[in-house]
């Protein structure tokens, strides 16, 4: 308290209004309840209200813990969290992309939750997804969302072009050619060249060509022969003129919008696109199949994480809140709301996921899902990969050369 008073004094001298607001912002000390601040990023406009509602339920159910929910848009999440942690104003629980988690954990911002979880809680998860939250044997968070990716196709366009749903990349090229030939306004297949998840779009091709992000020695796999073939696969599509125009200017959303408008025959995307299509193009007839194969079946599994922060003074209460959010009923409601694949074992047999063909395909592919590695410098590696891909797609650089420089960069970062 005296420390606060000195601060208040200083604030008062420096900025007149400071002291008054400080006094107003000091929480009443008499409260015995633990306050748990939880921060979410929004997947859709439903996310914020959903968690506010859950928090209200939780607060009404007991009187030891008070949950306060904050929500932020994704694009600002990373910067805000870093700023908050640096100033000691971070929430107790925060949502984040799993790929940021490694860096946050290494720099001591997160609390391992192995000893906080109640007995048996960890066993309720699908093991693959919980394992992804572990580094060096410790669990740094819970998989709040999981998605796999599939191939969305426009039934009407495929029918008009007279092609079957392609299962290999060769068939995909042929199908895309025929669809593109239908009309100037229609494109065979979408290839993503910019923005968030550009590297993910390339992983689909990488993994189905038998490549991987790291090789057996833990070095970069960006420039392996399979990786070059995977890149050439997209270059072939681009050079055949069967993609949307301007691949390098198209981000994930642009492709989704093209598909929604019925201008794209095929796009690789995740289950959230179902929600957009239901809302904006209820008449569009589409199906979802597995990602085309060259040598291997594969899909990109992505999770987001929710973690307890190292600076939290109420870690036990925070864990109780998380366990409430992750009970069977609440998870099922969340999954249905946002269209993500189940992370709890109990959900896997729900008719919602197994009977709807547009959801079931993601579940079917779960066993062949691959994931991005959990390394602290992943964002920087992905950035140099994106750059190499852009140079390859545009034809400015030979794919093998461009990928080699991205692989060198990745290896250098791994050695840091």
């Amino acid at each position, binding site marked *: 308290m005296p420390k606060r008073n000195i601060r208040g004094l200083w604030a008062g001298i420096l900025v007149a209004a400071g002291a008054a607001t400080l006094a107003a912002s000091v929480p009443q000390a008499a409260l015995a309840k633990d306050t748990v601040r939880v921060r979410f990023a929004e997947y859709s406009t439903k996310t914020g209200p959903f968690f506010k509602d859950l928090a209200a339920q939780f607060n009404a159910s007991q009187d030891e813990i008070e949950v306060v929910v904050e929500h932020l848009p994704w694009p600002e999440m990373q910067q805000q969290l870093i700023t908050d942690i640096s100033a000691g104003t971070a929430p107790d629980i925060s949502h984040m992309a799993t790929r940021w988690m490694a860096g946050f954990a290494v720099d001591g911002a997160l609390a391992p939750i192995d000893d906080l979880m109640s007995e048996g809680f960890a066993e309720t998860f699908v093991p693959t997804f919980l394992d992804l939250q572990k580094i060096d044997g410790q669990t740094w968070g819970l998989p709040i969302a999981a998605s796999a990716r599939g191939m969305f196709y426009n039934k009407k366009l495929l029918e008009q072009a007279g092609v079957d749903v392609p299962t290999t990349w060769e068939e995909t090229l042929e199908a895309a050619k025929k669809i593109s030939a239908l009309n100037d306004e229609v494109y065979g297949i979408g290839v993503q060249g910019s923005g968030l998840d550009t590297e993910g779009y390339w992983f689909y091709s990488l993994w189905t060509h038998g490549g991987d992000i790291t090789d057996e020695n833990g070095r970069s796999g960006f420039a392996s022969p399979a990786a070059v073939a995977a890149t050439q696969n997209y270059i072939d599509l681009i050079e055949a003129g069967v993609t949307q125009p301007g691949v*390098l200017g198209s981000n994930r959303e642009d492709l989704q919008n093209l598909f929604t408008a019925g201008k794209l025959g095929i796009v690789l995307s995740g289950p959230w696109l179902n929600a957009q299509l239901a809302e904006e193009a209820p008449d569009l007839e589409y199906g979802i199949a597995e990602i085309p194969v060259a040598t291997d079946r594969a899909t990109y599994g992505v999770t987001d994480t929710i973690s307890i922060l190292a600076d939290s003074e109420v870690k036990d209460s925070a864990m109780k809140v998380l366990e409430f959010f992750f009970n069977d009923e609440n998870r099922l409601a969340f999954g249905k709301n946002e269209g993500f694949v189940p992370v709890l074992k109990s959900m896997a047999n729900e008719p919602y996921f197994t009977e709807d063909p547009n959801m079931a395909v993601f579940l079917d592919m779960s066993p062949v899902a691959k994931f991005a590695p959990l390394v602290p410098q992943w964002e920087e590696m992905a950035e140099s990969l*994106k750059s190499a891909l852009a140079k390859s797609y545009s034809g400015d650089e030979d794919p093998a050369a461009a990928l080699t420089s991205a692989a060198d960069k990745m290896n250098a970062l791994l050695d840091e």
Partner: protein
Amino acid sequence: MEMTQTTPAQASRPQSGARIGRNLTNLVFILPSVLLSLTIIGYPIFEVMRMAVSDVNRFGKIRGFEGLGNFLKVFQDPIFIQSSYQTLIWTVAVVGGTVLIAIPVAIILNEDFHGRSIARTIVLLPWAVSLAMTALVWRFVVNGDFGTLNLALTQLGLPFNNHPWLATAASAFTIEILVGILVSIPFTVTIFLGGLTSIPVTLYEAAAMDGATRWQSLTRITLPMLRPFLQIAIVLNVIYVFNSFPIIWIMTNGGPANGTDILITYVYKQAFAFGKLDVAAAASVLMFLVLLGFSVLYLFMTRQRGAAGQ
């Protein structure tokens, strides 16, 4: 005190003492402004300087002294070099374009014509929206398939149906520069209008009496009289444009292949995406030095030229 003054020599001493005293009390006038900015800007600048020479984790916690190591890392990064070059193009193109357009626009808006205040309000409009929103709206406008730019061009019979404007670095950078010019015009035009209205009408009347043509009074009176305002506009625009973040960040994120990255987007990526606050701080210090060097040099040169011209 005046009573005791007997000789001029004696008189000057106490008087100058009083003057120094009064000059010191005059500091009261500038003190509030110094205090306000020193408190709010001083500390963060100090933080940046400190991080630039330290080994820092991604949350700004200092792990040790790094000396010039961070600066070395910055200079060894080819993307920093590329971004520096692109920053030069960005700044020169946006500021140059802005000034070239703003001068005639300000001259026209200074004329007396029907609907002048409507025209002025429209010219100022881009200033009424934050850069982030402007950039977002323009990203929609130039969208290949759904954007209104291609819609309008196609309706005019031009072959831009589904043209992907942001798909190459050259085309995306050009669009970003044009948007940069558009949002800088209101500020610059306002400064020039201020300059134009400060030119006494009598000068033009005298010139007209001497039989000067409109062109002559433009080149002999208007433009020379605008010079100090031009100088302010250039210095301030260079500072603002050099540090301008939202347009590029929102429209292309620095892509494709870092082709539209400038130093400020480079710094942002280093700090908040890659978790390298120390490298980001070192790059920021370099940016600061470049701008400081520019401002001092430019102001010095123009002052010299101004002095030589008089």
